[in-house]
């Protein structure tokens, strides 16, 4: 199984809603990532989890709250979003050779969640 599965594929939410994006992989990868991608732009890193610990937060607003319940799952909790947060949210995973070198292998991406905030 070389897949990263993201649910839902599409999500429309109001600015007062609370929702969660889910990401799952069963490749034994110990690094997992959330990226945000606006149309015709490259993916922008939001969070990195390494061995289930948050290792990087790219100054993301607190209305985005990541969670890594175990080594296979990654969630992104959304609350009080703004219309400008509408984007494709991508989850990725990779298998680091050790805790100090999470970047030395390829990243596997899910198909993304297309989020629209109304």
């Amino acid at each position: 199984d070389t897949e990263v599965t993201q649910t839902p594929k599409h999500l429309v939410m109001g600015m007062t809603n609370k929702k969660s994006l889910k990401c799952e992989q069963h490749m034994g990868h110990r690094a997992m990532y959330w990226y945000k991608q606006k149309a015709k732009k490259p993916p922008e890193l939001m969070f990195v989890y390494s061995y289930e610990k948050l290792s990087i937060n790219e100054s993301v607003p607190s209305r985005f709250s990541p969670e890594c319940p175990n080594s296979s799952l990654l969630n992104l909790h959304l609350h009080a979003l703004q219309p400008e947060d509408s984007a494709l949210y991508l989850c990725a995973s990779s298998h680091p050779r050790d805790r100090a070198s999470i970047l030395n292998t390829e990243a596997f991406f899910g198909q993304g969640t297309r989020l629209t905030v109304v």
Partner: protein
Amino acid sequence: SQQGEEDPQALSIQEGENATMNCSYKTSINNLQWYRQNSGRGLVHLILIRSNEREKHSGRLRVTLDTSKKSSSLLITASRAADTASYFCATGNQGAQKLVFGQGTRLTINP
């Protein structure tokens, strides 16, 4: 910023021709990776080249890396309509522990 800059931003060629995309970056790197993204979908890893490598091949793909010029190129030979996609380079920096993507090249293969 470590972010890569890609050139050209858009490329349109005829099926069967070769496509070359370039990527430049600013800081020292551990490796450089190339990804493909079909419209509105996830990214697919194509190839990873380490900082001590100069050239790497995978099927119809050829990647070169020149660390002295902080640049890389991706060559797709004998292009096919299915190669139509956006292509991104991404650099990994050990100190920053994160993968940063370039602006991307939108490649269109015309039948």
